[in-house]
């Protein structure tokens, strides 16, 4: 089962994402802050990280930079999630190392597409020779 790590300080958002992505066949691990997220990521090696940018203390931008500086974690795609919709927020998230960006309130169909795209791309980049053998087939992913 594909494992996602969601780092978010708001409990209701953790419940929402866990249930909605759980319904789509993903295993969702959650962490309440960046420190806990870092520990969980090292222990659980998730396939993708969903990062709330408005975390207390270490915010999502700083946390993402730390993930991307860690050789054991830097290959894991990170999607920034934020209720901020200011012009330039997306660029700011990408500059911090995020691979994609989405806004709250969540639109789950859109979020699922972004997750699937990144997972497929990450799988191809990690196993390019197998990809060529298989005719660039995308990996099996849960049903939306």
């Amino acid at each position, binding site marked *: 089962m594909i494992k996602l790590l969601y780092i978010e300080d708001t409990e209701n958002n953790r419940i*929402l994402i866990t*249930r909605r992505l759980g319904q789509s066949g993903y295993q969702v691990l959650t962490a309440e802050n960046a420190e806990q997220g870092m520990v969980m990521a090292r222990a659980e090696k998730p396939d993708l990280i969903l990062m709330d940018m*408005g975390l207390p203390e270490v915010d999502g931008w700083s946390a993402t930079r730390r993930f991307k500086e860690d050789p054991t974690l830097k290959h894991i795609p990170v999607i920034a999630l934020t*209720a*901020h919709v200011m012009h330039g927020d997306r660029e700011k998230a990408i500059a911090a190392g995020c691979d994609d960006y989405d806004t709250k309130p*969540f639109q789950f169909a859109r979020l699922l597409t972004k997750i699937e795209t990144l997972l497929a791309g990450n799988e191809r980049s990690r196993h390019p020779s197998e990809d060529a053998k298989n005719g660039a087939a995308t990996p099996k992913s849960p049903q939306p």
Partner: protein
Amino acid sequence: MKPDPADLQKARNPDALSSEKLKELIGQAQHDLRNPLGNILGFCEILLSQLQPDCEKELRVGLQAIYDSSHKIVNDIDWSLDPDKSPASPEEITSLQGELRQRVGQILVRIDALRSDAAKREEALLSADLCRMSDSARRLSQLIETALAFYPKSELRSSTGAPAT
């Protein structure tokens, strides 16, 4: 992130606040107001997706009304509190606050009615989700008053008849 009280004080004198700072405060208010709305919308979607097509009509209608109203509030907030546009005037903000108070009040009434029905039917999981939605709506009610406190007070009275806050 809470706005710095010094900035709030300065904001009451718009000349003392740089346009960049005002933009930041408006962006923060938009962010803070969208968060609880996201929770209400998300739980509505989950509950609606779990309902059987031909039963629990009242619940479906109630949830759909809450969803539609919350969605409209998100659109209105995005329209009025777009940090990339010219800032709304204090009068527009007072009017927005009045509208939001009224609509969030209606959302709360609907959620509480559904909660009461769910409690009578002893549906614990549904009750728990409705309780989360109710908490988010109450949080939103508070934020309508506090998240925009950096705006100068307007002489306008809100559409609910309450004095401008």
